Structure formats: structure tokens, C-alpha cells
């Protein structure tokens, strides 16, 4: 169904209410998502992006009925990932010669995925395409936000920035705009998206935001490729991104542990009690890693000033869940955060030292050499855990 977003600009995307996982199973999408595609209907008719491949057939059929495939003059592909380009192979069977405007890197990503040699028109930052009626599209390359091929397109006069993944959220909604949805849902999903997908590229993002500001384009609407369109004060999400890109943290300490027979869990709870004794204000959150959603945990790490990681020792090492989680922390390149490790052990007890080394390599500043407790914590060990917590709160 084609829906007007402004003047002659229409949303022609797909709401995916059922999506529960994204990027394979890496990213949980508890609230579904949308794949936003747009039609600009001026003298020239332009399609901006498509939808994920499972919805290709209904997308193309719908586009044909509502817009007419043969009337599309240009296609803009802002990013080659399959959730946005997935309907291209089917679409291009119907209109094979239609020019596709994209970055040089998108030619590589599209060829690499679909093995087709379509009519690619490579554009760079500042290039313009006239759509008639005095309107133009201006392209802005956004390399590594979040693929090498990423770019945005800006529509003059209507002052809409088609930002693709930037400023997006995995939020299925029948409403199109940011002011129409629950604001808690919206910002929870926006920050989760940033933490899990864009955080590694924060240094580039800061520069890109400055570059876009220097272009002095009046931006009245930011039309993303996932979730709602920002029409009510679109600057608010740009300002949020500027904060999030700047080593973001809140007054929060997050304890994340895995446990076998609950000894390490017992320590986790005592550490939390120690933190609270020393600091009445700090937000404390405690999660059992194996029972938790890792993408949600990453959002909590993103908000934290300190993370405290716990695992017992098994086979001279930590539980594999923790090793995987620390690898995730490393990939996401957190900066300016502190960490400490703890755990129970029976006889060898290597996990705490190993966790400490790994999380330091992942870019965290280590608070102490960590807390180890042999067998199940007795009263003395519990007191040590409380003291460890106090030390973390005041470090």
C-alpha cells in the first residue's frame, strides 16, 4: 500500500510484524521491524531502496499496481544489504535497463550478492540528479555507516534526508512517523540499534554528522530504512546520535555473569549489594548471561560506565558463553568504560584472570585484578564480594 509522507513522496515499504531475529540470529527484534522503500513522483519517478527478499514478490506486485513498474525512471540503492536490496533481482527482471544510482562500493556489494550487471550509475558525495519540477536528489556517501557501500540521499525543496540505516529502529508499526508511536518503545529500539550496529563506527559517525551539518541542508524529515520516519523535530535523533557517538555512558553499573551451580550467581548478588552500599544513586543491573538476550545486554553495556563479568572456572577456562560475549564486546569497540571480573572455582580457578585479560584487550579499563572464590562462597567470601562491589562503585 502506497502512503504519502510529504507532497509527492510516498512510502512503499513493508511492515514485518513477525520478525524476531535479524542479521541471522545476532540481533533480537522483539518488536518486529519495517523495510522502508520510497517513491518520489515528480517529472521523474524514483524508487529509493526496496525490501528484504522474502517480501520481494508482494513488493514488486504492489509497486506495479500502485505506481507502475515501467513508469520508474531511476532507482536509488543507498545500501546493498539484502534487507533493502532484496527485491532488486525480481524488480530488475521487469525493468532491466533502469539506471540504479549507488556508491562505487554498492556496485561491488550488489554484484557480489546477485551476480548481475545492472545499469549502475556510480555517484559520489555532492553529486546531484534532477527530478524535474525544480527538485533534485543530492547524494552523501556514508562509508562504514554501516557498510562500505552506505550512502544517504537528500531531496531538495521537500527537505527530506533518506538516511537508510542511520537513525533507524527495529520497530514494526502501522504508523509512519515518530510522533505517532510510544516514545519509550521508539527510543529503546533506537538506542539498541545504535549500540549493536553503529557503535563500532562512532568515530566516523561524529565526522559524518559534522560534514552533514556543514552542508547546511535544511532537514525537515529523516526517512530511515527501518522503523518510523522522523518528522517531529528530526534534529532530536541527530542530537542523540551525537551523544551516543561520544563515548556514551549513563550512571549505570551492569553485572553480567554465567554460573553452573549458583556460586558465581551468589557472588554477583553480593557484589551488587556492595555497590549499593557505597553508592545509593547508581543504576545497578544484574543479568544471568545464559538466560539473557545478548543484543539487549549490549544495550545495557552501552549505557554503563562499568561492567562486571562473572564466570566459574571449567576445564581451566571460563564458560564459553562468557568468552563469546567478551568477543562481542571487542567487536563493538566500546570506549571509555571500566570492567572487572569475578567467579567461583573448585581447584584451578583460571577464569577470572582470563576474563580480565580478554576484556582489557576488548578496550575496557580494568579496575582490579578480580575476585576469585574457591568452592561455594562462605560468609567470608560473601563479605569479600561486598567489599569488591564497594571498590567497583568508588573506582
Amino acid at each position, binding site marked *: 500500500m502506497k502512503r504519502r509522507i510529504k507532497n509527492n513522496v510516498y512510502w512503499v515499504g513493508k511492515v514485518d510484524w513477525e520478525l524476531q531475529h535479524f542479521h541471522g540470529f545476532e540481533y533480537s527484534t522483539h518488536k518486529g521491524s519495517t523495510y522502508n522503500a520510497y517513491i518520489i513522483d515528480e517529472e521523474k519517478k524514483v524508487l529509493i531502496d526496496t525490501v528484504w527478499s522474502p517480501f520481494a514478490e508482494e513488493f514488486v506486485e504492489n509497486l506495479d499496481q500502485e505506481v507502475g513498474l515501467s513508469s520508474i525512471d531511476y532507482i536509488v540503492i543507498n545500501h546493498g544489504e539484502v534487507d533493502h536490496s532484496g527485491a532488486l533481482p525480481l524488480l530488475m527482471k521487469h525493468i532491466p535497463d533502469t539506471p540504479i544510482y549507488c556508491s*562505487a*562500493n554498492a556496485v561491488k556489494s550488489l554484484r557480489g550478492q546477485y551476480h548481475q550487471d545492472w545499469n549502475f550509475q556510480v555517484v559520489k558525495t555532492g553529486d546531484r540528479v534532477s527530478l524535474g519540477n525544480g527538485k533534485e536528489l543530492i547524494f552523501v556517501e556514508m*562509508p*562504514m555507516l554501516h557498510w*562500505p557501500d552506505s550512502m544517504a540521499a537528500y531531496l531538495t525543496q521537500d527537505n527530506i534526508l533518506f538516511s537508510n540505516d542511520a537513525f533507524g529502529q527495529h520497530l514494526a508499526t502501522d504508523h509512519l512517523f515518530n510522533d505517532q508511536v510510544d516514545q519509550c518503545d521508539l527510543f529503546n529500539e533506537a538506542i539498541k540499534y545504535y549500540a549493536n550496529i553503529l557503535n*563500532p563506527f562512532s*568515530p*566516523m559517525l561524529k565526522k559524518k554528522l559534522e560534514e552533514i551539518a556543514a552542508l547546511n541542508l535544511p532537514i525537515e524529515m529523516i526517512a530511515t530504512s527501518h522503523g518510523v520516519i522522523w518528522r517531529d523535530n528530526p534534529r532530536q535523533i541527530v542530537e542523540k546520535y551525537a551523544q551516543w557517538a561520544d563515548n556514551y555512558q549513563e550512571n549505570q553499573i551492569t553485572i553480567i555473569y554465567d554460573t553452573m551451580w549458583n556460586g558465581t550467581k551468589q557472588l554477583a548478588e553480593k557484589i551488587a549489594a556492595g555497590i549499593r552500599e557505597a553508592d545509593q544513586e547508581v543504576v545497578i543491573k544484574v543479568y544471568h548471561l545464559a538466560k539473557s538476550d545478548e543484543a539487549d545486554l549490549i544495550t545495557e553495556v552501552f549505557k554503563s560506565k562499568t561492567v562486571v563479568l562473572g564466570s566459574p572456572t571449567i576445564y581451566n577456562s571460563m564458560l564459553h558463553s562468557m568468552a563469546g560475549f567478551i568477543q562481542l564486546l571487542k567487536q563493538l569497540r566500546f570506549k571509555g568504560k571500566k570492567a572487572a571480573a569475578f567467579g567461583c572455582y573448585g581447584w584451578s580457578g583460571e577464569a577470572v584472570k582470563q576474563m580480565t585479560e580478554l576484556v582489557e584487550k576488548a578496550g575496557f579499563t580494568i579496575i582490579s585484578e578480580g575476585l576469585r572464590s574457591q568452592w561455594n562462597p562462605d560468609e567470608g567470601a560473601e563479605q569479600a564480594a561486598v567489599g569488591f562491589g564497594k571498590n567497583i562503585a568508588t573506582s
Partner: protein
Amino acid sequence: MDKYECTACGYIYDPELGDPDNGVEPGTSFADLPDDWLCPLCGVGKEDFELVEE
């Protein structure tokens, strides 16, 4: 001095600019970049860079 392009993401290393965000002074040739220097855009190593023919 020669420029080098990252074959993964297209970043151009320009010796005149260096990479000050990552401690590389302007005027540092590509050959003089430390072996563990990474593309500041996409994170691949020096071996994934190619000479830019001008």
C-alpha cells in the same frame, strides 16, 4: 608521496594528511606506517591496501 586505497572500503591513505586520530603524523609515508596500523574506516590491515595510480 604515494597514496594508497583500502580495497575493502575505499578509504584513501594520504601521506600528506597522515592519520592523526590514530597517532600517525602528517607526512608519514604508507611504508612507514606501523605494521599493526588498521584502516581507520573499516579496520582491515595494511596488506589490503593498493597503490593509487595517478
